[in-house]
């Protein structure tokens, strides 16, 4: 039996013949980065490689790193290992890492979702022998509605609030989710159909610019200070802010605003209620349960290695369905937002 192409090491997922790491959580010599979320892209390594569309966001997060990029599908050979990056559909520049060596093909998915969202290259199934999959939403209770439906719900909610003279504060992760919502509401309502101005929290500015530079259409946005204190527009605005802004003084200027949270975790009433917001929009950048199963089947892999999320559940279920299933312990969190149950983060 040929040796494994990827193994778990204390520094991260490691490719022994190629002598490089995928999303290492400790500084290493060579790091292949699946996407720029903080738990997958960490500072301190000597060389970085990522998909070309991800350069802007990665450099926004880790300025000055020695970075090389690859176009999706472009192949390079390193120490005899053929490496290519393929769209994962998670956020801008996110990639699955395909490795071929000694007659086997391995794919490490990083984080992924199947539905095309208009802000990044859509997920592309890659055939392989061994597939390393995430499992953030690896329970059958997680099933997503089409994005267009969620965006329409967000616009309806915003419109209802604007008509009642209340600002709409929507909390979401600053990188990926925010741009997806901005793009999505614009698609849903059209530039003339937006119920009011869009205000972006300062934490979004740099990432929005990186998305715009890659050609993603975003609606016109204002800074909070652009709206005078007495402007009625303040009470018609959609305010996008990271979760950390909840109950912050920054939000006070919007008065008695309606608030909501956009995340896959909002699928559960309990998580939504603990957030203490009016509404929860179930919108995730990760695959839901049917998506995970579909992606795994599409790879035609015999062997599946499950990382971060509902690992034991996925491993047991896949094994029962006839896969050769196992797990890797990783240090990846679930950046979908901070509402992730800590219980699963350690699993």
């Amino acid at each position, binding site marked *: 039996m040929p040796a494994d192409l990827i193994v778990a090491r204390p520094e991260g997922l490691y490719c022994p013949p190629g002598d490089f790491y995928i999303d290492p959580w400790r500084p290493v010599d060579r790091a292949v980065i699946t996407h720029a979320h903080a738990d997958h892209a960490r500072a301190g390594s000597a060389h970085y490689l990522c998909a070309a569309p991800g350069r802007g966001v990665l450099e926004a997060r880790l300025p000055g790193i020695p970075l090389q990029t690859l176009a999706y599908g472009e192949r390079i050979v390193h120490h005899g290992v053929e490496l290519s990056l393929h769209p994962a559909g998670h956020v801008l520049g996110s990639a699955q890492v395909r490795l071929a060596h000694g007659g086997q093909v391995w794919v490490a998915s990083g984080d992924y979702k199947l539905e095309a969202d208009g802000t990044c290259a859509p997920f592309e199934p890659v055939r392989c022998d061994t597939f390393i999959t995430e499992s953030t939403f690896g*329970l*059958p*209770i997680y*099933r997503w509605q089409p994005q267009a439906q969620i965006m329409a719900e967000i616009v309806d909610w915003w419109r209802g609030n604007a008509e009642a003279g209340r600002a709409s504060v929507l909390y979401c992760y600053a990188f990926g989710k925010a741009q997806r919502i901005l793009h999505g509401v614009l698609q849903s309502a059209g530039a003339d159909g937006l119920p009011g101005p869009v205000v972006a929290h300062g934490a979004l500015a740099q990432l929005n610019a990186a998305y715009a530079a890659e050609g993603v259409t975003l609606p016109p946005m204002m800074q909070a200070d652009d709206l005078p204190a007495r402007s009625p527009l303040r009470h018609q605005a959609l305010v996008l802010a990271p979760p950390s802004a909840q109950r912050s003084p920054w939000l006070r200027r919007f008065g008695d605003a*309606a608030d909501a949270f956009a995340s896959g975790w909002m*699928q*559960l*009433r*309990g998580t939504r*209620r*603990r957030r*203490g*917001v*009016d*509404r929860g929009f179930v919108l995730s950048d990760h695959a839901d349960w049917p998506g995970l199963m579909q992606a795994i089947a599409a790879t035609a892999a015999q062997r599946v290695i499950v990382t971060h999320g*509902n690992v034991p*559940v996925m491993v*047991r*279920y896949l094994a*029962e369905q006839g896969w050769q299933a196992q797990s890797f312990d990783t240090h990846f969190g679930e950046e979908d937002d901070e509402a992730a*149950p*800590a*219980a699963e983060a*350690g699993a």
Partner: protein
Amino acid sequence: MKAFAALYAELDGTTSNNARLAALVRYLRRTPPADAAWAVYFLAGGKPRQIVPVAMLREMARHAAALPEWLFDECYQAVGDLAETIALLLPPAALTDEAGLAEWVEQRLLPLRGLPPEVLRDRLDALWRPLDPQARLVLFKLITGAFRIGVSRPLVVRALGEVGGLDPKRVAERMVGYTDLNARPDAARYLALIAPEGEDAAGRSGGQPYPFFLAHPLQVPLDQFDTVLGDPARWQVEWKWDGIRAQLVRRGGQCWVWSRGEDLVTERFPEVADAAKLLPDGTVLDGEIVIWHDGRVQPFALLQQRIGRKTLNAKILRDAPAILMAYDVLEWAGEDWRPRPQAERRALLETIVADYVHPALELSPRIEAADWPSYATLREASRQMGVEGFMLKGAEAAYGVGRTKDVGLWWKWKIDPYSVDAVLLYAQRGHGRRASLHTDYTFAVWNAPPDTPGRALVPFAKAYSGLTDEEIREVDAIVRRTTVETFGPVRSLQPTQVFELAFEGIARSPRHKSGIAVRFPRIARWRQDKTVEEADTLAVLEDMLAATAPPKDGG
């Protein structure tokens, strides 16, 4: 069902009580009375007896979702609510059913009770198919009886008041008994709730009780009693009985016994009902049901055991005889006596109990002493007496509605200096004998009064003792079922359980999140009769704290 599911979504989709109130009012105004009758019943906390065995529901859901049992259980643990889990797992569909709530409950749900499993299985399966996920969630919540969505009974009462153009207090009176276990809401009962003032003069002809008047805890040092309370002669002092608060209603040749939870308990206490038969029509007495033996009250546990019995045999009635310890009269000769002063009501009550002698009807004695220090001395006998301290009732007090102070005042001067109903929020496994069981608990109180938007629980005390082994096992199962997150050995929990905590001292502490530290906290009682919403607030602790402050100079 469609309209009710939409209401549910609307109520659930906001944390603002005003928005909830508005949604309720809109719903009630445009809904047929027969449907509104059930909506009010469920939202106000009504629960029909179990309609379908839980195991059957789980089996149905597993089968429909084609999941192995272990995976269904994993899902249930992640969700923490059976109805929600099932709704999330069933194959998706659109809502095509147009039947109203009353038809759903009366024609489709209640008839399921007691069906043989093979019939039930198919009937159950057909129920949810024409519903969308939101309506399914509501359906399964109706079936499991876990219908809590942050709408309090007072909020429902306010909405009804608005719909009927009535004082909410009036509606509260009419609501008493509406959600009783044996109650069957219908259009007529619903319309009676919102009928214009005056049209219900005869409405009290049935077994309708009055809303209970509740006491406030008295936490003032003895040396301030004269300042706070004044002359003891202005107060009617009685023992505070530890039993079940109850009203005995005698009208139209019938009698009813109502507990404070507004459940009809007539059949649980046949002795008390028997005593009621002596009384003339148009009589309502207020008091405490206690177990009474050899001229003294028996421990509450005995009463609890008796409540737990499905059937009452002669032995139980002999070993644990119940009486009504009467302490107030609310209606006499068909007249509402509540506005009359306490002293006048007391005088009448004394003659009633003297005139209608029955072994299950006792008069709660007045305790008389010259001054407050003498009362304090008498009060030290409370533990021996099996009572919780004293009740102080203003001699001029009218009988109010709920925990109000506007028409009169009742104080409970309990022996335990400090006692708080707190919510279990975190649990950690114990050690040694208790290893693997969650026995170390963190408790919280609310940071604002009920119906305050966005109020939150604030942890304030840890307690490790006070439960029996049996209770620990029960709590452990609940901890596992309601875990939200795990931080190492600590689990954060969905707030579902209320415990009465007792403690000896209270002080400010910057080290505690609540700003308050308590001394020797322990669990006094598991308050399974209380909902999380009914737990105490930080203000109660603040009041205790304030009472420990030395009086100001020159006062």
